[in-house]
């Protein structure tokens, strides 16, 4: 074997080792979270965890239902705000605006995706929360405040992925429709949007994942009370906030219960990703 060949073999071996260690680090996280979180779920019953109403972690009462509902409530709220505005913006930019405008706005949207969540939370606390308190009542720290801020936060995700899938619709579809006498608006509504449907759905699901996983913005503006909200002005605590608020001092079973909260988050995200990947793949095969 020449030196050159030996070097080649060595390099390949070294790269393999590094790749394996990177991948195993990532695998270990998954295993670790599940190993720490699963036993306590089985000890007290998965049902009690998922559907229990009482969260008194120091008295062996680990009901996560209020937090699960809290997460779902703010996520649903964020979608109600994020979907119409995000889609409108994406459709406007791809179908009805000039190339110049698009070239200016797309990087701006990408930049917005980079604003740290704690800054969104801060802006929520200083602008939105007082506004809600004065005009709508309550403390202001509420489902509504969290929904609005999260809705803004998921806009870049929805807009940029929707733009990509709208641009992937072949030009000939639009030309065919216009040649048949349809207006531009009809073409968008009846030809372009249905063709880009899977990509748009994928963008919404990914936005949803971002909203569910968001911690800092929500913790600052959602109020964090462990109770099931009865109106949009009530405070809620989400799964992510639950971890962030209590991990600092938790120990023993309390700590394990927080890992169990992490497991639930993990599983939700996995399910959402799988759906998003499947729908995105559907568009590609078309």
């Amino acid at each position, binding site marked *: 074997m020449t030196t050159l060949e030996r070097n080649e073999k060595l390099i390949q071996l070294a790269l393999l080792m590094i790749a394996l260690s*990177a991948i195993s680090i*990532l695998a270990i*996280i998954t295993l670790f979270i599940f190993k720490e979180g699963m036993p306590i779920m089985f000890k007290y019953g998965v049902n009690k965890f998922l559907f229990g109403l009482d969260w008194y972690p120091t008295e062996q009462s680990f009901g996560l239902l209020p937090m699960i509902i809290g997460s779902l409530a703010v996520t649903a709220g964020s979608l109600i705000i994020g979907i119409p505005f995000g889609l409108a913006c994406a459709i406007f930019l791809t179908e*009805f605006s000039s190339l110049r405008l698009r070239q200016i706005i797309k990087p701006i949207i990408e930049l917005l995706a980079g604003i740290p969540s704690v800054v969104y939370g801060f802006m929520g606390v200083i602008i939105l929360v007082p506004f809600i308190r004065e005009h709508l009542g309550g403390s202001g720290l509420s489902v509504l405040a969290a929904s609005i801020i999260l809705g803004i936060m998921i806009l870049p995700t929805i807009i940029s992925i929707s733009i990509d899938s709208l641009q992937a619709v072949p030009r000939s579809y639009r030309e065919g429709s216009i040649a048949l006498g349809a207006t531009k608006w009809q073409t968008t509504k009846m030809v372009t949007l249905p063709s880009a449907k899977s990509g748009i759905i994928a963008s919404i699901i990914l936005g949803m994942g971002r909203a569910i*996983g968001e911690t800092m913005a929500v913790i600052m503006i959602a109020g964090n009370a462990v109770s099931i909200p009865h109106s949009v002005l009530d405070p809620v605590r989400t799964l992510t906030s639950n971890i962030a608020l209590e991990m600092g001092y938790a120990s023993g079973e309390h700590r394990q219960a927080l890992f169990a909260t992490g497991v639930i988050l*993990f599983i939700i995200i996995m399910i959402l990703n799988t759906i998003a990947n499947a729908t995105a793949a559907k568009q590609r095969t078309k």
Partner: protein
Amino acid sequence: MDNRKWREIKQQMGFLALRTSALIIFIILGILLYFLFVRGIKVINWGFLTKMPENGMTSGGIFPAILGTFYLTMGAILFALPLGIMAAIYMTEYAVQGKVIRLIRIGISNLASVPSIVFGLFGLALFVNYCKFGVSILSGSLTLGIMILPVIIRASEEALLLVPNGFREASLALGATKWQTIYKIVLPNAIGGIITGAILGVGRVAGETAPILFTAATFYTMKLPNSVFSEVMALPYHIYALMTEGSHPKEQKAIAYGASLVLIVLVLGINMIAIVIRNYYRRKKKW
């Protein structure tokens, strides 16, 4: 004729709705950023950026928080970048492209979207408690590094896959070895995408709070960090703590405005560099 007019009106209404929605978004964002800028710029001066906090967080500067964020970000990148790029090289250039590698890819892209607080949980359990690194720069950097590892692997892989196969074949046909081909042909052509991914990773790490909540950050420390085992102040955590802890909300809020503006300028600046570099390489691309 009537029908055509109706269609025309519908189209105009549709346009209007779309344009208004797009406008509303930018107006809202504009207002938020304007607020932040106007109130933040009043607080910021040279002293604010270079001094220690004074009088129990009610005056003075945010220097330790800026320094802490710098250390944490550097640590995370030093850990994740070489590991991520080399893993990506192996996965795209050497590994057999079958079921196993596909499964690994799916796993990696799933991990890229796991909530950052879950990484914080992991970091606390593994680095702080199990490895006994304590609440420290080391624990925080490793946690942040692991969080962006999937992002860096994915970005590097994408960049490598964009290099046309013809380049590799031509190089091999000239008698170059595999590693020579990767080192001299593939990497130089993929470097733009890899750098962009890395810089975006830096931007993300600099702004993250949840992973360092229990692994690295502290609200107040009298001294600057002197080793990787020191706990540090960090900009994003500082903003959070100013708004939720302490006993002088009014004075703290003013500082939080300044700190938010500094953080946002820092992160957006980093991202802007990434976008500029990406556009530069896109234009330069030879194929």
